[in-house]
């Protein structure tokens, strides 16, 4: 026994193990650093490429062109002809479409989550959760196909009711409806989590005070969960702003704007980046990277603003 133990406490072996540990830890640290530095890589490279249209001369048909940043950011027309790239209206259109999609998505997602957590029987709520998860798993390209196949037809019918000639149903309304369907699962999932986290005591207190179950649901549960619901909305906005394929298929890429007409074609930042992508050099290609930077900024700024509002709402009670 003594021999056995001594054989195993071998200093050389222990040192080897310690060195091995250090090597492995460093390898794993290197991997982590690599993964974490990707975000910096993205910002750096896209910024370098995206700034070039404003500081470099592009030669198209023997003429020099350079994009003016002020005109770029405030422009109300987007032409693929040189030097009239303006995306001011595109930013407004994007925000407008996302805002509309929130109006469609918030009621249904919040009420669905309330239904799942508080009203429905166990089996029904399980089925509904599965449905929401399936909706969340559908890729955006399929939503795009669905948008073209069904939602454009609905919107076209609706616009005919108002005697408005829409471009085959491809419009602001269609885009925001497709976006609403896409962000609904996200908001619902987070709302479910936050409603489940509401303490039973608060609810019981409300019921004991004589409020009905429905009154409690709407005036106590939802109000208590509003911070979490708002977190879901922030996530949904992020997804809606960055959504590209489905939006490009139904937005219609209007040449100028901003348009607040529901039945008119629109143009979002992502659809601008994606549509008509053919060549991989030149001004028309590089300007997409500038749009990409603007997209990152728009997402960041909306996130900051919404988080600020969320903190304000969280304090009110």
């Amino acid at each position, binding site marked *: 026994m003594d021999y056995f133990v001594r054989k195993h406490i071998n200093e050389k072996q222990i040192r080897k193990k310690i060195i091995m540990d250090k090597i*492995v830890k460093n390898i794993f640290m290197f991997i*982590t650093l690599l*993964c*974490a530095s990707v975000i910096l890589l993205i910002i750096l490279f896209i910024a370098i490429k995206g700034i070039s249209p404003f500081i470099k001369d592009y030669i198209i048909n023997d003429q020099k062109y350079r994009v003016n940043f002020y005109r770029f950011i405030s422009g109300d027309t987007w032409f693929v002809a040189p030097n009239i790239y303006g995306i001011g209206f595109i930013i407004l259109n994007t925000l407008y479409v996302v805002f509309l999609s929130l109006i469609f998505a918030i009621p249904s997602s919040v*009420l669905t989550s309330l239904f799942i957590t508080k009203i429905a029987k166990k089996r029904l709520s399980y089925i509904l959760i599965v449905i929401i998860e399936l909706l969340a798993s559908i890729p955006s390209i399929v939503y795009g196909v669905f948008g073209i196949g069904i939602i454009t037809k609905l919107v076209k019918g609706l616009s005919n009711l108002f005697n408005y000639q829409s471009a085959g149903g491809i419009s602001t309304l269609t885009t925001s409806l497709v976006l609403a369907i896409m962000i609904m699962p996200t908001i619902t999932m987070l709302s479910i989590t936050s409603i489940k986290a509401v303490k039973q005591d608060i609810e019981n207190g409300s019921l004991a005070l004589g409020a009905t179950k429905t009154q409690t649901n709407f005036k106590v549960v939802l109000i208590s969960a509003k911070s979490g619901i708002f977190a879901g909305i922030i996530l949904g906005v992020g997804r809606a702003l960055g*959504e590209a*394929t489905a939006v490009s298929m139904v937005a219609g890429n209007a040449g100028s704007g901003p348009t607040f007409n529901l039945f008119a074609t629109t143009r979002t930042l992502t659809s601008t980046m994606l549509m008509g992508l053919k060549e991989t050099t030149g001004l028309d290609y590089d300007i997409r990277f500038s749009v990409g930077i603007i997209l990152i900024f728009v997402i960041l700024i909306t996130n900051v603003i919404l988080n600020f509002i969320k903190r304000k709402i969280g304090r009110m009670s």
Partner: protein
Amino acid sequence: MKRKQKDLILNGITYLFSSFGMIVLLAIIIFIFSKGYKLLSFDLLVSDYYETIYDTRSETNPNFKEYENPNQNNSYFSKNWGIALKDSFNKENEKVVVITYIDEYSPFRNMIDTNNNNYVEIKIDQQINKIIAKDINDLYLFGLSTNGAKSMVEVLDNTVKIENMITATSGGGIRGSIITTLYLILLTLILALPLGIGAAIYLHELSNENKATNFLRSMIDMLSGVPSIIFGLLGAIVFIPFTSKILNANGGNLLSGALTLTIILLPIIIKTTEEALMTIPNDYRQASLALGSSQTQTTFKVVIPNAIPGILTATLLSIGRIIGESAALIYAIGTSIKDQVFLSEKSTTLAVHIWSLMSGENPNLELACTISIIILIVVFLLSMLTKYISKKITRF
């Protein structure tokens, strides 16, 4: 009483809005399936997207016998050549003549390629575009697909030798895109899983909980909020030049797409794996360390084996994401559909294939729906499987 009515209305609204998700899901499934099921067949999965054109001629029809008529509906039978033809429409909605039947002894099974004089077998479902043939008196007769199947059969029945016939396979298959998708899944998982699992293990097992670790973690969290089209831009300016040098490629290729997808998947894999690591009781690690094994041994022999269900979940989620990803790949690879897939060339996954179909000049909604069916089935299965596995994980 008033309160009751108010409650009733509010509850009614809740029921109404809650059914919205179900209605949308049903609408999507019904629409996609009803529009796409017609084209769904095994042939679609294994055939090429582009038409193959054959330029052939026949020997003088030697036996000149009457073939047996199979009596197919809607098709015209040429008893002289033993084939049946019918009118149909191709992908671009042009009128074409399609072969629906070829007799066992028909000369169409032994046509001669005009380019290299090899024997070619004409198969069912190919289109006949043009026929130049000779009748008994050595006079030329022409059959064109625009005149329809009936006139072509009449031409065939009056001729003894086909001088020149242009036939084409119907095309529209998605074999290339399926292979590309599988390639990309394999490549991306090979790249992304080691990185993602490594980072998760470092963050959860090896690192000290300090500010630096939290900073790294928040950097990785930031990645998950970046829209996929931005990753596509990164792929276009970093990975395409990088992989072009390695593979001698010209522009986008599968490796640049796989690298871009790797970065998209990193936050998902890291997060899922970390969650799995959290469910492993600390007792396991302490027991392993107390038995004298080193940190490395504990990590590889105790922690990772116990995290395998979580890693599997991460893998399934990744596969679902790869199949559905389109915006990033449009930038990182390109949108040209290919039948032959090479690592160093452009190609499309199923999702980008749909994008190519829909953004062309003649959007093909039906084929897009058919591909969507395949994507939906795979994605739903993966989602169910993930749910099943994550239920199993919570055994601790």
